[in-house]
């Protein structure tokens, strides 16, 4: 067993026993702290800095051309642990500019009452179409209001830069004779 050394406690001096010098020291401490700036964030006007990898509300994004990236493969719907996502697949019209993408969601609902912000949908998405971005406060007056539909999801998501431009390359390849296929 380790040796223990019992320290003698020094008897309190008279000044210490009156308790008054300690009170003065304490008053000094609180006064110094009072003159320090406050750390309060005035919330609705001032917003906290959200880190890059924050998992906020899941949103749908468009690519820089303004094309919706989701191709309604429904992987996120399948992976979603609380089954918060519901996708109704649809087709892209043949005469559309992006007809070669073939599919897009007709409806895309995320129920924010079920969502657990796990981020698996973002992780699984092969098209990098769904992102958990920096929105962190969700509120509504009814259950229906808490279901984000497709339009709302795109409003929240906006446009993100795209490094791959997969469908641009595919279209170019189709036109120029299958260089990549």
């Amino acid at each position: 067993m380790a040796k223990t050394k019992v320290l003698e406690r020094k008897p309190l001096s008279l000044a210490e026993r009156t308790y008054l010098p300690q009170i003065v020291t304490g008053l000094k401490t609180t006064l110094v702290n009072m003159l320090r700036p406050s750390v309060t964030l005035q919330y609705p006007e001032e917003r906290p800095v959200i880190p890059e990898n924050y998992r906020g509300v899941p949103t749908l994004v468009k690519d820089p051309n303004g094309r919706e990236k989701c191709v309604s493969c429904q992987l996120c719907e399948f992976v979603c642990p609380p089954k918060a996502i519901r996708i109704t697949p649809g087709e892209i019209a043949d005469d559309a500019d992006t007809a070669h993408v073939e599919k897009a969601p007709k409806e895309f609902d995320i129920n924010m009452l079920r969502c657990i912000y796990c981020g698996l949908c973002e992780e699984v998405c092969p098209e990098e179409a769904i992102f958990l971005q920096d929105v962190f406060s969700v509120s509504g007056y009814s259950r229906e209001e808490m279901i984000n539909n497709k339009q709302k999801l795109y409003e929240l998501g906006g446009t993100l830069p795209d490094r791959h431009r997969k469908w641009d390359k595919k279209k170019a390849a189709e036109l120029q004779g299958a260089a990549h296929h």
Partner: protein
Amino acid sequence: MDWFTAYMLPVIYAVTMIVVVMSIAGYSVLAERKVSGWIQHRTGPNRTALPIIGAIPVLGPFLTRLGLFQPLADGLKFLFKEDITPGHVRRGYFIAAPIIAIVPALTTMVVLPFGQYTDAEGVVHPLVLANIDIGILFILAVSSLGVYGIVLAGWSANSKYPFLGGIRSSAQMVSYELAMGLSILPVFMWAAVPEPGNLNGLSLFGVVQVQQGFWLAMWQPVSALIFLVAVFAETNRLPFDMAESETDLVGGFHTEYGSFKFGLFFVAEYAHIVIGSAVFVVLFLGGWNFLPFIPAPWPDGMVGAVMSVLWFLLKIFFFIFFFIWVRWTLPRFRYDQVMTLGWKVLLPLAVANLIFNTLLIALRDTL
């Protein structure tokens, strides 16, 4: 116009005084919240805005950030909240208790001098509602009635936490009143200089007039210290807030109270703080005298009167700040520590101080 000066003028003065003291009490609630915030690196209330004043470009947001409209909102809330009286209380006493608590708090201000007025002949008059010769005796007598409100509240609420709070607070107030009374005896012995024509006695105005040179806190630091501690105990402020003591008694004596009745207790507490600060300033910090040894620069007449009142108010405001400052510095005493401090330290100290000062004053008067 005789009836006007005889009956109406005192009423107008009294109402003005009540309005001033009550608004100082209301705004010291705001000061409490603001200073608490600042000491903890927060901002305190800064959202409540009035429709028209709050919309003035620069001033409005500034006042809103200072929280100046917050007391209005708080007061309205106390007025309009549902007034719930629990079924198990003793109803008559339960309703009487807040009234009994607030009446002494507001009565003591009658004898409190708050400024001076020098008339054309150079005679100095006190600004006070009733300049009675036994001012301090009146204050001590009436303010000790405040304990009845707390005891009644604790008993009539008919549940255990208010009961404990009431008992604690009454024991504490009775204990500290002894030390308080003994600590101010030397002050009045000092003030009553045996000169021909000096009829100061127990008059508060006389005490202030004596302090034109030295303030009494310098002559009698021990008295000042004992009185200060006793004032903290009498107003039930931290570190002596045994009566409330949220951690062990929920809310203490006012646990069962809500809305306007609670508001009365709340205002009474802060009115006590205002009056206690004022009494301390009058007794020990020179009242409205400017600074030690610097004669008051107030001119004669009304201007001088207003200036002396403002200087007096400034001292009171500092003292209210001191109350709040101490609250956020010291932890609450344990109950037995409060009793030990009151009976075994302050009371003997006050007696020793009284004897010492008696000898000192006797020496001064014979030499």
